[in-house]
């Protein structure tokens, strides 16, 4: 049986590593394209100032890339040590996308990286520009394959569970690659990286304008950053809409938690802003919110692209709803899951005694209940509900910040175009202080995605409690604190090196 302390520490360690890794990835994704755009302007115009601008941002890109390098590999270590059941079970599915990532994207990225940094006077302008674009494309392709894997965990498709090897085996590679949850997640995630890159360029450029330093280059940079940010912010809204639509289809509990929706409705509203009632319990009659401002119909439209659509709440998903919506209760799913587990156990024993007739009969029972397999490990029907407060506030804060970034980019671009940006000091300070807010929004997005799908490691198939290895909790605690110290030190190093470079100004890079 699961050791809840071990599961909690394993989850905490993975969360720490993933959140830390995500401090570096978005800037790589976004800044790489902004640099490519800046260099394109240089090649098109021949204006040497654009070369200097490109080289400055490239230096900051390199700092971020170097400090972030290999932080993701820690998660692979954790899979093998802390999450061995999970690693074994998904090995066949994850092998292909991760191998493609390693072979194609990573090598493309790293090969052209050298030309991008060392090749300024060694190769032609066109060759250098091509390399810069390929670094950007390679970075983004790396993200594609990781997010295909993550999307599969949220919505497992294109696979079949092999009862003899205890592995999910890939039936259709293309179903896995074109999993709608995977690609909507990819688009939304890279979109957030682009916005982060834009916030970084706009924020640092704003700093120079506030200090009255390198103003010509800062003004040119801020226009590129704000334009890129404005376009990608709109893209982020569209991809977020598709992402929420996929959540509604495949992870209704996550959607209910995102909106603090306890009772399902037709023509459901979105809570634009509100305060959850912390005393609210699943199944009781108390109000969900202490106060809230709602947008009518918006949740039905967001989730199902239909203003009259019914959106199930936490209560319906836990207790079921036979009132026309045919939602099976968690209790019933748990019972079906237990039948699947028992059938798998009996199948295994029948195979051991080479009784093929019995084995076949048990396998038929297993397949009939396989859909609810993971539920059989849950102890209580309420276990299917994630931490509603954390998911709700993370989601709403993320959306609020995303909206602010859109307004910020618009204002920055507008005042830049009319030549008054230097006089708008409050706006410039806001841009500077929006850099950490961009990081916060990205991390909140991951909290929504990953906390919102609890208790599942693989949606409906494998709860986190069954995914862990049987190792000592103290070993996980030790490495948790080791990572916390190393990661914090690296983060301090990055901030220090970055600040030093920024303070030097945009000359001589």
């Amino acid at each position, binding site marked *: *049986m699961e050791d809840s302390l071990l599961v909690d520490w394993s989850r905490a360690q993975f969360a720490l590593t993933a959140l830390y890794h995500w401090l570096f990835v978005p800037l790589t994704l976004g800044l790489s394209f902004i640099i490519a755009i800046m260099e394109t302007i240089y090649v098109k115009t021949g204006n040497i100032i654009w070369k200097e601008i490109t080289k400055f941002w490239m*230096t900051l890109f*390199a*700092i971020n890339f*170097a*400090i972030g*390098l*290999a*932080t993701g*590999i*820690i998660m692979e*270590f*954790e899979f*093998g*040590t*802390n999450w*061995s*059941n999970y*690693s*074994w*079970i998904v090995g066949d599915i994850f092998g292909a996308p991760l191998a493609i990532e390693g072979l194609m994207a990573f090598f493309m990225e790293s090969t052209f990286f*050298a*030309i991008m*940094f*060392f*090749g300024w006077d*060694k190769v032609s302008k066109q060759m250098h520009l091509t390399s810069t674009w390929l670094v950007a494309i390679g970075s983004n392709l790396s993200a594609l394959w990781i997010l295909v894997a993550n999307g599969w965990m949220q919505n497992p498709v294109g696979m079949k569970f092999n009862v*003899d*090897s*205890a*592995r999910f085996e890939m039936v259709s590679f293309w179903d896995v690659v074109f999993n709608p949850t995977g690609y909507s997640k990819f688009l939304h995630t890279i979109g957030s990286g682009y916005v982060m890159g834009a916030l970084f360029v706009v924020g640092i450029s704003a700093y120079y304008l506030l200090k009255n330093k390198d103003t010509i280059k800062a003004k040119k940079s801020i226009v590129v950053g704000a334009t890129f940010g404005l376009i990608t912010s709109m893209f982020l809204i569209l991809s977020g809409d598709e992402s929420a639509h996929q959540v509604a289809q495949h992870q209704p509990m996550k959607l209910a938690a995102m909106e603090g929706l306890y009772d399902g409705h037709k023509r459901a509203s979105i809570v634009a802003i509100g305060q959850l009632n912390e005393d609210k319990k699943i199944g009781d009659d108390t109000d969900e919110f202490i106060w809230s401002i709602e947008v009518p119909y918006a949740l039905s439209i967001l989730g199902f692209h239909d203003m009259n659509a019914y959106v199930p709440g936490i209560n319906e998903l836990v207790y079921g709803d036979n009132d026309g919506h045919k939602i099976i209760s968690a209790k019933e799913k748990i019972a079906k899951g237990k039948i699947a*587990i028992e059938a*798998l*156990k009996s199948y*295994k024993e029948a195979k051991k005694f080479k009784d093929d007739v019995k084995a076949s009969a048990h396998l038929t029972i297993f397949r009939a209940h396989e859909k609810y397999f993971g539920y059989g490990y849950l102890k209580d029907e309420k276990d299917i509900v994630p931490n509603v407060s954390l998911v709700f506030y993370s989601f709403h804060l993320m959306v609020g910040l995303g909206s602010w970034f859109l307004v910020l980019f618009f204002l920055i671009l507008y005042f830049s175009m009319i030549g008054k940006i230097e006089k708008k000091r409050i706006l410039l300070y806001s841009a500077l202080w929006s850099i950490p807010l961009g990081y916060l929004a990205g991390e909140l997005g991951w909290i929504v995605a990953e906390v919102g799908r609890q208790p599942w490691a693989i949606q409906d198939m494998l709860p986190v409690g*069954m995914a862990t*290895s*049987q*190792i000592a909790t103290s*070993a996980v605690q*030790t*490495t948790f604190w*080791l990572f916390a110290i*190393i990661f914090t030190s*690296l983060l301090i*190093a990055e901030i220090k*090196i970055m600040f030093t*470079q920024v303070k030097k100004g945009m000359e001589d*890079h």
Partner: protein
Amino acid sequence: MIYNIFKGIFSLYIDGFKNMKVGKLLWKIIAFKFVVFILIMKIFFFPNFLKTNFNTDEQRSSHVLENLTKG
């Protein structure tokens, strides 16, 4: 022809490394991470549980199945 291509690639890296400014510090950080993450962490703190404790894939799948079906 091939010699010149290799010579060009070689000098790209050599000159690139020689002329690095902040890059030298970054390479030191990358080397530090390589030692700490790959050599120390992986070897001493993160052994692959299934590879360390079982010799064959059959044993590994049996172990996982055992975990999945024990009451």
